[in-house]
């Protein structure tokens, strides 16, 4: 566990994931597993009824990471982003009665983005760092809303009731938070 406790940099995890996708590198996968597994399990535990169910969904998520590592698209986000989307989709399948339709970039009607993807991998590490710093600057009340929405599967009206604030306040805090994060990313340092 000593090794697992060490923080991995965003650069390192990206290289590990490439090694998993390209070379089927089991050691690299073990490091990703030990780093992300417990975090994914914590995410699942927010909805799971017990620790075993959370463990199962974590295993499913990491199995998907192993199987789809070669499909990781750095233009859409970094490794943590990608793992979040996999975990989210599995959690929707497990705990929601309905589905979550998604767009398909291979669909002929899909409108592609014309902005040229620069050096996506490099850009991503820079951008993720700027995003992390901007998130640290967010007022606690805004960050709390984002966490409740992402992790606890609560609608904004439920959150408003829980926090005993008007729904309009929830909405304006969400807008303020993302306006700040967007601005932070647009400022190319």
């Amino acid at each position, binding site marked *: 566990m000593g090794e697992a406790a060490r923080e991995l940099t965003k650069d390192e995890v990206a290289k590990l994931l490439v090694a998993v996708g390209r070379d089927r590198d089991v050691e690299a996968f073990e490091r990703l597993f030990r780093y992300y*597994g417990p975090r994914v399990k914590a995410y699942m535990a927010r909805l799971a009824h017990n620790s*075993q169910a959370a463990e199962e969904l974590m295993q499913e998520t990491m199995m998907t990471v192993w199987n789809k590592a*070669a499909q990781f698209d750095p233009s859409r986000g970094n490794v943590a*982003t990608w793992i979040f989307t996999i975990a989210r989709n599995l959690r929707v399948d497990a705990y929601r009665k309905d589905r979550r339709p998604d767009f398909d970039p291979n*669909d002929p009607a899909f409108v592609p983005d014309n902005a040229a993807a620069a050096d996506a991998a490099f850009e991503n590490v820079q951008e993720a760092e700027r995003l992390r710093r901007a998130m640290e600057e967010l007022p606690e009340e805004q960050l709390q809303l984002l966490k409740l929405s992402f992790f606890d599967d609560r609608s904004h009206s439920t959150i408003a009731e829980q926090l005993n604030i008007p729904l309009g306040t929830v909405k304006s805090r969400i*807008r303020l938070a*993302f306006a700040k994060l967007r601005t932070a990313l647009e400022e190319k340092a």
Partner: protein
Amino acid sequence: MMVAHHISDELLLSYASGNLAEGWSLAVATHLALCPACRHRLFLMEKTAGQLLVDLAPEPAADGSWERMLARIQSAEGTPTSQPVAVSPACDEIPILPDPLRTYLGGDVTSLKWIPLGRGAYHIPIPTMDRKTKARLLRIPAGKPVPEHGHGGRELTVVLTGSFRDGEELFARGDIEEADTSLTHQPIATPEQDCICLAVTDAPLRFSNWLLRLVQPALGI
């Protein structure tokens, strides 16, 4: 063609979080297929979620968790590692309905069976697994209004072909309109062609006209 009317942050956040009902999600995903700008906003939200995931207090894995994982990936060896190249069938024409909507309906607009609503308007209900919302494809005849109505809840409308005016605003392909209980409106299809849009509601519309209110239950709107 630039999309002019976009998804609100709060709706997009619910979609990014995976806690938006299927009907609403269908409208959001259809807009996203046509709007690169909103996809960028979605990706920012997912990046934020990724960072929050990394910051979560880790929940220790069960004993023997890695050994189990290792056994699973070793027995799974031989599964394709590179993505199956998804080649869409060669298409001379771009479909009117983007995915995921086209898949829900089982084909593009020309192959569908439209159900008359009266006054030249047609619709097709879209089945989802979500009981909270009703999704439908609507066809409003060129130059004609949708009868003036208010909303018992929320209404999302995504334009797929043609366009409509709502007051001063023009909504064309890809545009999404979010209406709630505070809005009473009378969208009017522009004269050039019929307007086809995806409409999702969570409560019956409130028509201003009493006659329409009378036949409404039979139409299921």
